[in-house]
């Protein structure tokens, strides 16, 4: 499954290793968790949702269904921000 993204908005996000996110379009800044940061970076690279979920399952040793729910919730938040 792929995710429809406004790649310009998503690609323009400025991230750092500590999970600080700056949206140059709005001037807003955010703090995301380590897994949120992993998701954002994967999406910026053009990964599909399935690929993002697979990456999290591998790196965090959590059941796929749990990861999928959390990722969906995160994507919903991103959509509210206009990044997807």
């Amino acid at each position, binding site marked *: 499954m792929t995710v429809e993204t406004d790649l310009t908005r998503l690609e*323009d996000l*400025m991230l750092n290793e500590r999970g600080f996110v*700056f949206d*140059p*379009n*709005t*001037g807003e800044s955010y703090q995301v968790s380590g897994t949120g940061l992993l998701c954002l970076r994967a999406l910026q690279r053009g990964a599909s949702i399935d690929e993002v979920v697979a990456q999290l399952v591998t790196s965090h040793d959590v059941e796929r269904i749990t990861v999928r729910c959390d990722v969906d919730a995160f994507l919903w938040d991103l959509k509210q921000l*206009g990044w997807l």
Partner: protein
Amino acid sequence: MKPIRIAVSGMHRGENPQPGASIAAAIRQAWPDAFIVGLVYNAFESGVYVAGGPDVCHAMPYPTAGLGPYLTRLAEVRAATPFDWFIPTLDAEIVMLAGASEELAELGIGVRLPDPAVLARCGKAQLSALAEHCEVATPATAIARDVGEALEHAEAAGYPVFLKGPFYDAVLVHNPAGLAAAGAAILADWGPPLLVQEPLLGTEFNVMGLGDGKGGLLGSCALRKLIVSDKGKGNGSVVVRDLRLDEITRRVMAATHWSGPFELEFIRDQRDDGYRLIEINPRFPAWVGFPAQLGANFPAAWVEWMLQRPVRLLPQPAPGRFFLRHQIEVSGDMGQISALLDALPNSINHNLTSNSISA
């Protein structure tokens, strides 16, 4: 090359900062040997006393005194300390001088100001029509000649409303008594008209730039306000990049053939995420020194443009760079204050570097 000799007004910083001190600093950044004449209305304009500030300062009559006295005084100042160019930085000066380029040229003073008709078109009273032409939304605004009319407009629109003056001041009023008090104060300070404007909820954005007078841009910088003072001033802002802001700015430039510095003020309306054009300021904003620190020296580019030298397009500062307004104490000497206070109508200079005063 002959050193640049230029006069700049608006030297006050502090709670309600003016752009002149930052313009002087930016010019000096580009040309350390520039001779800068500070034109002030008040001996307590703090930029007068800043290290590296104006070489000489002169007191001026307020623009409300009229064009004649203002030009007379400019001629006196120029006779005392010659300068070739003048960058007025305050709205009231610009409105008064926009139609006086020829008179200023006769005094040997060069200015580059927007055409008076363009200036009127961009004024608060006519902004809605220009915005419609440029296909950008503005808040609903009614124009009143006096407090009585403003009360009628506010009653029709419903409180709260913003009450604004022709040049400065914007007060959020919640009832007729508040409107009457604010209206009387604004009229006393700035004269008519009063503008009654719907308040919008959203974040404030500003775009500063230089128009080339041919419908194009020499550069621009867009900010989002991060910290807003109780006077509505941006005490902290961050550079943003939104193509919609760029496009609106281009449309305004194309529609007006704007010549010189400007600041567009927007609110990003939280109802629909769209930008509402609130105001066009025909001058550099108080934060003009910020992009100059990031390689986009707008005052220097403008001086180059006035001198008809080639000007390269200014780079857009990178999104994420921010400024915080930081107040410091500058020191002066009461002798300096006294000299400026006594300066009208005769010219008295003070030399900031030696802390001496000479007539």
